[in-house]
């Protein structure tokens, strides 16, 4: 019982320390608040389920990114009608504060949302300053493939953001 409590306690501590990462992943893979809450819950649940089998041989952050990104990538929304309402919610979520910085962030998210799910995971890890070796471990592709993919993704992002600026 005490062991279980300690297990929960250490899990909660680790999650509290890393909740910013989970929030960012949720923002990247959802387009409204309700979906974001659902994904957040799902990621936490999967992390809790996997935490029992987590061994400290691998880095905690690598494990966390693996579980969280795999959950986000395999999340499925069947109801396409939500897409219409989503944009309004999202806009409301960001536009409350009308600063240049937030405009930039909003544009970044719009651009990121145009990438496929795997590319989003790769660029997220790069934005989080992860080394190629760790990105390769999380995604499961070679380091050279990571490097090539990152060049392509950044070019694509540049062009998407340029188009968004022109709009």
């Amino acid at each position: 019982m005490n062991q279980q409590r300690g297990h929960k306690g250490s899990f909660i501590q680790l999650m509290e320390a890393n909740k910013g990462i989970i929030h960012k992943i949720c923002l990247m893979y959802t387009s409204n608040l309700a979906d974001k809450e659902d994904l957040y819950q799902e990621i936490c649940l999967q992390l809790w389920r996997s935490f029992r089998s987590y061994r400290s041989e691998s880095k905690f952050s690598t494990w966390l990114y693996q579980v969280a990104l795999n959950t986000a990538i395999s999340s499925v929304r069947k109801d396409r009608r939500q897409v219409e309402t989503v944009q309004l919610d999202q806009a409301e979520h960001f536009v409350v504060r009308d600063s240049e910085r937030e405009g930039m962030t909003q544009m970044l998210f719009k651009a990121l949302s145009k990438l496929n799910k795997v590319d989003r995971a790769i660029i997220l890890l790069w934005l989080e300053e992860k080394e190629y070796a760790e990105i390769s471990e999380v995604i499961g592709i070679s380091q050279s493939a990571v490097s090539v993919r990152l060049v392509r993704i950044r070019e694509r992002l540049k062009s998407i953001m340029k188009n968004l600026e022109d709009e």
Partner: protein
Amino acid sequence: MNDLKNGWANIDEFAGIPGIGITSVEKFKQGRSISIAGKVRGIFVRDFIFKSLAFLFIVLNLVLNRTDPDIRLINAILGVLWIIFTLLGIKFYREFKRSADPARSSRDNLSSLLTFLTRRFPYQAMIAATSYIITCLPGILLYIVAAFGHLQPLSTEKYIFYSFMGILGTVSGYILDIRAVRHHILHIKICLSDLNDNALALASQKIEMKRKMDHIITILVQVAILLAFVGILALFKSVLT
């Protein structure tokens, strides 16, 4: 590219979700599942609920109608089928848990999920579908005894109606599960092809190698299940009409 990183660094201050924080583990245990693994787990859970109900009905029938040899025989056969299907269900659930483990690279995670859903899930869907009829038959017997105090002969129309409802539940359950998973399979295939690293081709190759054998086993299992239920329905008819 510094712009991108600067934009990313600004997110923290308004990335939080109002009302959600990690204050307890229990809080997020009841979350609605949106991941493929979560949805497939839901199918397993639903099947285990049906199986528990079937177990309860079979046991109640055996207790309440212990003097009737025909009822004993039907429930004994259902009990044996229940044991076989439950053991198979547990075996597939264990395989699924291994396949759905998210603490691996995305490529491994998606490949193993695809392999499980393509090769193993059709059997699980069949097993889950049989749960309806295994629950339905002892349920009807129990209902008749509870309603009339003893076994009441059924008219041919009623017999056909009950059999039809049981078979309809079984077939539609199977079709719905397979259709739901087909949607997930498509999603996984898109993600694997997005990996652009021959991941989809390799996973498909692995699945294709075993597909022929899977196909023969699937047909054999379907025939065995069909024969078992035709036998039970015939027995059911001889008792109740």
